[in-house]
């Protein structure tokens, strides 16, 4: 179990002054009665929960999407979303994990399985019959925006295949691609590699596994701990050698940095070394820019680009680095969304009972995009699940900002989603 962990997150409940600012901004409790809100399920309910209790007294905490709007607005620093995550883990520990959550929590396994025969897998996952069955049997909402397996091979395949043409340099960076890039969106990885190399960095892609976030957000703390330990084993040498570990998935990098250590109470030196070595890719690029090292040989982009910073940036607490870089590109009319959350919140919106909530939460964002007018051809967002939700809610394609940046460098085709010069 995770009992020691009450130590680091739990005490922040003592900071709460009951002001309900968090409740005023929580996007989920704004759209549903089923969720009483951050203060209620977080610092307030926590005083009524105990370690080793005979049963979880409350279950509505499961409706927290983990978007962390509450953490952001709380004036006193209560780690509300984390308190909620732990309460959920406690429910899971008591009641077991539904099959659906087991599946959604195992992104990587799913990715691997589907990649063996992606076309077939796509068909069997996406045809309407199996979606209805999936909803009936497992409670995965039939309309929810599930990803498609890459039919052109995984990112790993591509990276191996192109080893001979990859840039070699003294300046090296470790790329953490995460499951989505590996199995569903290898083009995001390609764009990232292109941007690194354009800036003179040799890219290393050591063996790595799923960061474990989907498990954490479904309350499977035991399994998540194994995942994180594996990643530490695999990545530690690079961190110790002083290399930066840079990721394109805002949720994976968050998990490596803070989420896993904090929720799982893994506080060893090695864990800390990974925390300190990990960067979100735009955070890293912004740092380069601050040091005057980022190339700015952008071509003019002429586009109106609604940009939504994903919720995970809120947890990174690094501002909006992708925005800070994208505004450097000439011709981009960046429209920054103030919407609180796209609704999907990782795997939250896939669940049947939460699909509509997720769509209602996302409405703020979808409306924002619609308000930006006809000229909009695509949206941008750093997180994969948010992009899928954005596409689902707006009917417009959505791109990772790294794709936009690679395109601005003239390295990437935004329509084909592939590198220009292979």
């Amino acid at each position, binding site marked *: 179990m995770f009992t020691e962990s009450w130590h680091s997150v739990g005490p922040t409940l003592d900071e709460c002054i009951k002001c309900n600012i968090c409740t005023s901004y929580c996007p989920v409790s704004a759209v549903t009665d089923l969720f009483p809100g951050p203060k209620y399920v977080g610092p307030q309910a926590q005083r009524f929960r105990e370690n080793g*209790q005979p049963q*979880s007294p409350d*279950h509505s905490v499961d409706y927290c999407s983990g978007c962390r709007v509450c953490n952001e607005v709380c004036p006193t620093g209560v780690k509300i979303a984390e308190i909620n995550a732990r309460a959920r883990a406690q429910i899971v520990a008591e009641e077991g994990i539904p099959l659906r959550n087991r599946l959604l929590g195992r992104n990587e396994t799913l990715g691997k399985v589907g990649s063996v025969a992606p076309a077939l897998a796509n068909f069997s996952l996406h045809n309407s019959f199996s979606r209805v069955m999936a909803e009936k049997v497992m409670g995965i909402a039939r309309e929810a925006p599930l990803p498609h397996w890459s039919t052109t091979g995984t990112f790993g395949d591509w990276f191996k295949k192109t080893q001979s043409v990859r840039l070699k340099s003294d300046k090296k960076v470790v790329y953490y691609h995460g499951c989505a890039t590996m199995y569903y969106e290898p083009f995001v990885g390609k764009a990232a590699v292109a941007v690194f190399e354009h800036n003179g960095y040799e890219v290393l892609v050591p063996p790595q596994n799923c960061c474990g976030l989907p498990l954490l957000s479904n309350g499977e703390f035991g399994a998540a701990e194994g995942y994180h330990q594996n990643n530490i084993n695999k990545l530690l040498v690079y961190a110790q050698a002083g290399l930066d570990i840079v990721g394109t998935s805002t949720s994976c990098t968050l998990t490596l940095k803070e989420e896993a250590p904090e929720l799982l109470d893994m506080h060893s030196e090695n864990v800390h070394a990974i925390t300190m070595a990990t960067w979100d890719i735009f955070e890293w690029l912004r740092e380069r820019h601050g040091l005057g090292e980022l190339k700015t040989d952008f071509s003019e982009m002429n586009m109106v680009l609604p940009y939504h910073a994903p919720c995970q940036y809120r947890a990174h607490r690094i501002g909006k680095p992708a925005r800070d870089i994208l505004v450097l590109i000439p011709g981009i009319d960046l429209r920054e969304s103030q919407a609180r959350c796209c609704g999907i919140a990782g795997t939250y919106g896939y669940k049947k009972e939460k699909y509509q909530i997720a769509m209602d939460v996302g409405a703020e964002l979808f409306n924002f995009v619609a308000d930006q007018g006809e000229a909009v051809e695509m949206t941008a967002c750093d997180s994969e699940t948010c992009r899928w939700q954005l596409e689902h809610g707006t009917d417009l394609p959505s791109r990772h900002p790294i794709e936009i940046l690679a395109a601005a460098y003239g390295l990437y085709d935004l329509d084909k989603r592939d590198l220009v010069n292979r």
Partner: protein
Amino acid sequence: MHKLETEVLVIGGGATGTGVAWDASLRGFKVILVERRDLTHGTSGRYHGLLHSGGRYAVKDPHGAAECIAENQILRVTHAHCIEDTSGFFVVLPEDEGDYPDKFKAGCDAVGIPCTEISVAEALRREPLLNPRISRVFEVPDGSSDSFLAAHATAQAARNAGAQILTYHEVTNLIMTGGESDRRVAGAMIRNVVTGEEMEIHADITVNAAGAWTGKLAAMAGIQVTIMPSKGTMVAMNHRLVNTVVNRCKMPSDGDIIVPSHTVCVIGTTSVNVPEPEPLRIEPWEVNKMLEEGDKMVPGFAQARVLRAWAGVRPLFQDTYTSGKGRDVTRKLALLDHQEREGVGGFLTITGGKWTTFRLMAEATVDDVCRHLGTERPCTTATTPVPGAEQGNYWLGHRLHDIEEQHLQGQLVCECELVTRTMVENAARRNPLLTLDDLRRDVRLGKGPCQGGFCTYRGVGILHEMKKAGSWEVDMSDEAGSTAKWDVAYLQSPGHNLVSDADGHQSNQHPANTADSFNPNLLLRDFLQERWKGVTPILWGRQLKQERLDELIYMSVMNVDHLPDKELASPVTDFYRFDTRPTVEEVADV
């Protein structure tokens, strides 16, 4: 002047007094209990909350230990719903090693306290925040007890057996009869402190169960009973850091027990001789000491948020009182038969003891009552559960569970302690209520982190609305002891304040209802001040920030400092205004 007649008059509405009223009425006596404030205004409402297993006294006072374990087992049945089965650890810190732990174990075994040594790893698994440097852990059947609820439930059991319970009725004098050789106490002069009305209660026998005030009562009969009031300070933390009672395994001393109590955990206590039982100051060194000692058992304790501090006073009785340190003077129960001692008939004093042994004290007292009244009637309290006990022990999550099941979040009046509007309304209908403080004791209103910041206004508004709508009538539907309307989750008693006069006519003595004194503005000011009194000794850091928010709400948003009716005061207003701020000398002392 109003006159009432009874067989047994009980003075004091604490654990002991309500226990005596319960026992005596079960034995068929006609009983009236008078209490000058609300039930548990005295030590019973200001104690540590531990249902002793007896472990604490196993070495020092085996007799007391044996009493504790016996009563512990009885109360778990008769007052099940007033008890949380937390279990208790006696932990051996590095500085506590020596022969005490073995003596402790032997002591427990000798008097029959179930005591098992468990591994440190097991203890840490169950209580992850415990100091990992402990070397041994013993588990005993300690529990956490709710004395507010227990007193109300006991009183209700007494009412159901025919007793009358009069709160806000103070004994101003004893009625003495006879001459030099046959002096008797024949009852007492009583003042309704709300209306100022005087009344006489004539009784065959008067039981003085006034706790630390027993000396004062005895003095009214010209009898000297030397009570040494010994103050104990406790500090409540914002949330539970442990869910098991944690005791140091060493000779009892200051700050060596942490009791999880509902949503908080409480560390206590100190032991300081004081001249008067009330009011009590809490000194900075005491708070400091509690936090330091807490930190030894639970590292980080001293950094956690402190919610509030309070002090209670032990009525330590020593017949040949000379001097001594509080904890060493006997804490055994003292039943004084003034006929035998001073030749004053019709008068018994019962004091000392512990909350855990209140039933036993009552039994001994009423045995004596029987003897004096020349009848023999066996005591049945040990096997008669009070109303509500059928619901079993309470558990921490009960309210959360209940509110979630019924979707009552929007109805929460006190959000911190999860008190709903219905709970407030029911409590107000059933219990005599003069201040919001009385509601606090009934339903835990205002006991949480914000210390009344939000619920003071709401509580006042609701009571005012009830008053206006005329819906604040005493609800008698529980008369036959039915518990249909009170679930353990609500932790409130079904009591009410009915008085029958000589010709059996019942009238409602609900002070707030009968007197025209109900004034929302006074209620508001009194409760804000009451909460303030308990936080000033511990106001820094997070609680200071909270208090500033509370100030913003009540001054800036509500402007309560410019509400009308400023001149009004209630009988407890002055009590709440007692100065609890640390002084320069006290601060320098730390």
